[in-house]
């Protein structure tokens, strides 16, 4: 099972510079735990006691996971997960 996880620039120090890494799991939570076994500290940058960190956005196949169940969102083989920092909206 392979799920592509795209990593923002600021976190690439934890993935040896890789822009994307692969992992597996049935839910986003399980996927992050899996990634953490190979990229120590990654999970903690994204998740705190109350769930996804406030300034972290995670998209599952381009859809914000906060509307798909957050950490409990189901993930499947072939899915793409994109992690991005929350930024001010442009063009306003």
């Amino acid at each position: 099972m392979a799920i592509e996880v795209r990593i923002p620039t600021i976190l690439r120090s934890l993935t040896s510079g890789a822009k994307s890494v692969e992992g597996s799991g049935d839910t986003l939570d399980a996927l992050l735990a899996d990634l953490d076994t190979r990229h120590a500290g990654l999970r903690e940058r994204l998740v705190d006691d109350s769930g996804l960190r406030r300034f972290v956005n995670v998209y599952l196949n381009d859809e914000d996971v906060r509307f798909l169940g957050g950490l409990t969102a189901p993930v499947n083989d072939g899915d793409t997960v994109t992690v991005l920092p929350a930024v001010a909206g442009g063009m306003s």
Partner: protein
Amino acid sequence: MRYDSLLDAIGGTPLVGLPHLSPGPDARLWAKLEDRNPTGSVKDRVALWMILAAEKDGLLSRGTTILEPTSGNTGISLAMIARLRGYKLVCVMPENTSAERTALLQMFGAEIIYSPAAGGSNEAVRVARRLAAENPDWVMLYQYGNEANARAHYETTGPELLTDLPEITHFVAGLGTTGTLMGTGRYLREHVPGVQIVAAEPRYGELVYGLRNMDEGFVPELYDDSVLTSRFSVSAADALRRTRQLVLAEGIFAGISAGCVLHAGLALADKALQTGQRADIALLIADGGWKYLSTGAYSGTLAEAEARLEGELWA
């Protein structure tokens, strides 16, 4: 249609069906054309309501300087209204925004302070906050947190949509300050059971996300995610492709955020078709394509346009 002056002509924009892009008679797309506002964007509504609210609160008088972090549309709207009302305007804008924005702002007499391209609008907000602290007599309306922003949409955009499309099932708009979705979304949810409020968020270039510490992010104070049903991230490539599709299939010359919105709208329409549900999807077309012509978004091949736009398209 007759108005006493230009400011009275803000809003009341047309809702136009998209017969060529709509996948079927039961899954229809509709475009609300906000370029049909005095300065050419949806922000005319927001600028007017923010200024009226500030006047009501006694914050503005002739000669007051208004300060605003803006990558263009809000600044242009504020510049026009400030001009008419006798206020000065200072805009803080990322340096890599298109040439047309600078030209329009200066034409209305606004002063521009450029913030670094790296960090995009986040950086503009930071610079503006510093300037506000250094100039206590300036008034920062702050579109990202000003309730009058969302209120403008609650009081005007939402009601117009309901009047023109009482059968609305989905509302799709770009997510920037979040004002459009918060205000219009709240209004529609109050009046249309089961309506879906969908955000189409541009995926910016690396420059905008930069080397920002994940703890230093930015979430507009207006944002309340309970108003949304879903939120999509749309790549620059998809946004560009859809913006061109809007021109070629429906004759609508819109700005790039319209491409984001169309991309999400088409996905919703297809989903409705698959599940056999009727859909009447309203797409908020925030502005026309004029300010983006110099970016090359509408000329050459799609691949060429994408390459040209990397880092420049979004600020």
